[in-house]
C-alpha cells in the first residue's frame, strides 16, 4: 500500500485492524499473566471478542462489499457464541474442580 493514494476509508480500516490487534495482545497478555481460571477467561473472552469485532469491521470496510461484510458479521456472531459457551463450560468445570480441591487455585 503506497502512502500517496491511501484513502480515508483505508486509514480508518487500518486503524481498526491495529486497534483489534492491540486488544488481542491485551487478551493474550491477560491469559498468560492473570492468576486464576476465571480472570483468564475474563481477559480471553472480553478482549478477544472486541478484537475480533474490530478486525472484522476493518476487513469489512476494506472489502467495500455488503456480502463480505455480512459474512464477517456472521463470523463475529459465531465467534461470540462459541466463546460464550466454551467460557461457561470451562468456568463451570473450574468451579467444580475448585470445590473438590480448594487448595489448588491458579495451578490450572
Amino acid at each position, binding site marked *: 500500500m503506497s502512502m500517496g493514494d491511501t484513502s480515508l476509508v483505508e486509514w480508518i480500516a487500518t486503524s481498526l485492524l491495529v486497534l483489534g490487534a492491540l486488544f488481542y495482545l491485551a487478551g493474550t497478555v491477560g491469559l498468560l499473566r492473570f492468576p486464576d481460571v476465571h480472570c483468564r477467561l475474563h481477559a480471553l473472552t472480553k478482549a478477544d471478542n472486541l478484537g475480533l469485532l474490530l478486525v472484522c469491521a476493518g476487513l469489512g470496510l476494506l472489502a467495500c462489499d455488503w456480502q463480505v461484510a455480512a459474512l464477517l458479521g456472521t463470523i463475529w456472531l*459465531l465467534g461470540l*457464541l*462459541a466463546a*460464550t*459457551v466454551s467460557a*461457561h*463450560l470451562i468456568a463451570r468445570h473450574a468451579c467444580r474442580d475448585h470445590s473438590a480441591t480448594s487448595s489448588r487455585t491458579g495451578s490450572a
Partner: protein
Amino acid sequence: MNLAVDSLIGLGLVALAWQAISGRSLFRGIVMFVVFGLTMALAWARMGAPDLALAEAAIGAGVTGALMLVALRRLVQLHPDQPAEPKRARSRLALPIALLAASLVAVIGLGAVSVDREPGRAGVAVMDNLAETGLSNPITGVLLVFRNLDTLLEVAVLLAAFLAALAVFRDQEQAPAPPRGDLPLVGALLAIIVPLTILVSVHLLLAGSHEPGGAFQAGAVLAAGGVLLILAGRLQPASGMPLATALPLVLGLLVFSVIGLAMMLTGAPLLALPGLWAVYLIEAAMMISIALTLVLLFAGASGLRRERP
C-alpha cells in the same frame, strides 16, 4: 512484506513443532500440535492452496486433535494414578540423524526450486482438459475425474483404518459417557451450531466444483457437528452395528465403485464417470461416509444411539 509474513508463519511452525515434541506435558503437546495444524492452514493459504488450508484446519488440526485428546483421556482413565509420561530415550545419534534428514529434505527441495523449471506436464494436462469435466476447480477435477482411483482407495483406507481400530477395541468396555447436567447454554448452542454445520458442509460440497471445498472438507465439518453431539451427550456410543450405520459407512465406496464399474460395461475405461451428476452423487455419498467414519472413530464405537435431552 509477503516474505515477512511467510517468515513469521514458518518460525511459528518450527517453534510449535518443537513444543509439541518436547513440551512439558502430553496434554500441552496435543494443544501445541493442534495449533501447529492451524498454523499449517495459514501456510497453505499463503502458498496459494486454499483447498489444503480448509482440509488442514478441519481434518489435520480438528479431527486429529480430537482423536488424540480422546485417546489421552482413555489412557488416563485406564491408570489414573500412573505418571503419564515415560522418560525420553537418550541417543547420541538422534541429533546427527535429524540434521542429516533435514539437509536431505533441504537439498531435494532447494534443488527442485532452483532449477529452471518447466511446468509439470501432468499439471498442464489437468488445466487443458479441465473444461471437459464441467468442473472449474482443478483440484476437484484431479480428485474426482483424472486420478479418481486414488480417491476411491483413499476412502477405502479410511474405512480400513476404522475397521482395524474397531477390531483393536472389540473386547473393550465402552468408556463411560460424560456426565450430563442441565446445561441450557449448551442446548442453545447445539440448536444453532448443528444445523449450521450441516449447511456449511453442504455448501462446501457443492462449492467444491468451482472453488475451494469438496467431499473431504465437507465430511470433516459434518463430523465436527457429530462430535459436538457426542460431547453434549445427545449421541452415545453403542455396541453392535445396525444396517442404518453400516450402510452410510460404506456408501461412498459403494456408490463410487458401482458407478465406476457400471461404466466399464458400456466400454468406458475403469472409473470413467458418466457426467457431472455422477461427481456430485459420489461426493455426497463420500461426505456421508467420511463424516460417519470420523464420528465413530472419535466415539471409539461401532454404533451410536440417540439420547433425548
